[in-house]
């Protein structure tokens, strides 16, 4: 277990609680000042909403300095709002259209079975009847297990047939394409070899292929990491543009 408790692991900077309160208070005053300046400039509701959005944004960004009271507050607000919105979306997108209206308007009485069966989930709160939740959830696992054949065929078969790449020149193939095919096929087989469980890696041929597989895997992971960096930065660029341009109007 490489010890990675680097020295910089200062969870709780030793500044006294009082000084923390002061800095947080000062920051809050600055924030309120900025809001007042913006609300004074524009008298409408949108500005109020933007100020609340700015506070939410800054509360979450404050987490990268240290987990703090403001972050904790907005973490709980976020979980509450997300759960509340989930209740609304579940009603609007599935229960209302697929259950309540057919039941109440079209007289499909048998749809009452859905909540009745779902009531078995709620037996977990009485130990004597909790086994019934296992019966229902076990059946659900059975349903998902039965889908494995279709999922495998739909996802894997097209990839198998598209891996049949010619390894030497045919017709108008360029040398570049032949080289690319070799790289593709060698990577595919080497990485698969690396993952064998029950075949001893010490066997001749297997060890070298598995090591090559591991190296190619590392190249692929590096490439994926590198290609994601731009997308992640653009997320924060958008937030900074909101704070500086939409909210404070200090940038175009």
């Amino acid at each position, binding site marked *: 277990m490489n010890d990675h408790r680097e020295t910089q692991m200062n969870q709780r900077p030793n500044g006294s609680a009082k000084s923390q309160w002061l800095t947080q208070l000062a920051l809050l005053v600055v924030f309120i000042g900025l809001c007042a300046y913006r609300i004074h400039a524009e008298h409408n509701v949108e500005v109020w909403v933007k100020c609340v*959005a700015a506070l939410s944004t800054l509360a*979450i960004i404050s987490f990268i300095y240290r987990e703090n009271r403001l972050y904790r507050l907005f973490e709980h607000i976020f979980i509450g709002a*997300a759960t509340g919105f989930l209740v609304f979306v579940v009603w609007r997108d599935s229960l209302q259209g*697929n259950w309540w209206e057919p039941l109440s308007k079209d007289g499909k009485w048998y749809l009452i079975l859905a909540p009745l069966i779902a009531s078995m*989930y709620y037996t977990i709160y009485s130990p004597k009847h909790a086994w019934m939740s296992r019966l229902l959830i076990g059946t659900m696992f059975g*349903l998902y297990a039965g889908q494995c*054949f279709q999922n495998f065929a739909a996802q894997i078969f097209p990839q198998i047939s598209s891996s049949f790449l010619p390894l030497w020149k045919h017709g108008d193939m360029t040398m570049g394409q032949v080289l690319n095919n070799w790289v593709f096929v060698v990577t595919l087989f080497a990485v698969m070899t690396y993952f064998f469980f029950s075949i001893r890696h010490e066997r001749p041929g297997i060890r070298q292929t598995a090591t090559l597989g591991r190296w190619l895997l590392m190249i692929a992971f590096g490439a994926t990491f590198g290609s994601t960096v731009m997308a992640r930065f653009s997320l924060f660029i958008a937030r900074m543009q909101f704070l500086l341009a939409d909210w404070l109007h200090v940038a175009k």
Partner: protein
Amino acid sequence: MEKVAPPALFQNWLSSHIFTPLSGGTFYIALVGSVIFWCLFLFILQSLPSPIRRRLLVVTTFVAGLFYSVEFFWPAEGNRLTGYVEPLGVFLQIMGGFGLGIGIISLCNVHGKAIFRRQPGYYNSIAFFLAFVLMIVASFWQHYVKPDTSMEAVAKQFYSFMFDGLYVPLDSTVFSLLAFFIVSAAYRAFRIRSAEASLMMITAFIVMLGQVPIGMALTNWIPADGPLAGLRLERLTNWILTGLNAAAFRAIIFGAMVGYIAMSLRVWLSLEKGTYFEKEL
């Protein structure tokens, strides 16, 4: 023209005899009847001795698994199960919706105890309940408010306050934290400690350089249509991503999907080992 699935096994008989829409008095009788039937059914279930319960679970899991696999292997023409796939999907979605209550009970349990026991930071739990209730009120109100009345404007503004003021900025800002974490993770992890670690680092370097203009400037002097065009950073990045990267991930996905089939078979045939499956019912 939408390909209408052939009627499934007994589907016509069921929908004409049992699952027929009713109205007026008979509708309510049917409702109450099914509730009573269900309570009876649960009472019978509860009286089953433990070994029979275990066998019942094995049978229901197997039959449930049988449905989707047989429906898949049964050729399209004359397939007498396809008719049930869509209604079953909707039924499962509705049951999932009713399952949400367990989550809300769990949240109320954790935060309710925090408030009741005055645990430190219990005001956060109060904020949770406030946000939870206000969001429900705001979203249902703007959904059901009568259009072009004075209340509609208030409802829309209240919803905008909760949605555009709290939910969307919190969601996109937590997502944007990745910009910081990807930098600190790369700084700490990309160290030339071993051959493999440096391989990963060098490739990440090349791909990062290939995506920004300053990086592309380094190899802009290589003619774009010459033989060495492939060494231009942006071309090299694309070659790694479309060739080597795609092959390595395909190999991982092949292995993972075989593992997925192995586990699904164990669950379906009740061969699975582990506390959840072996505990006495």
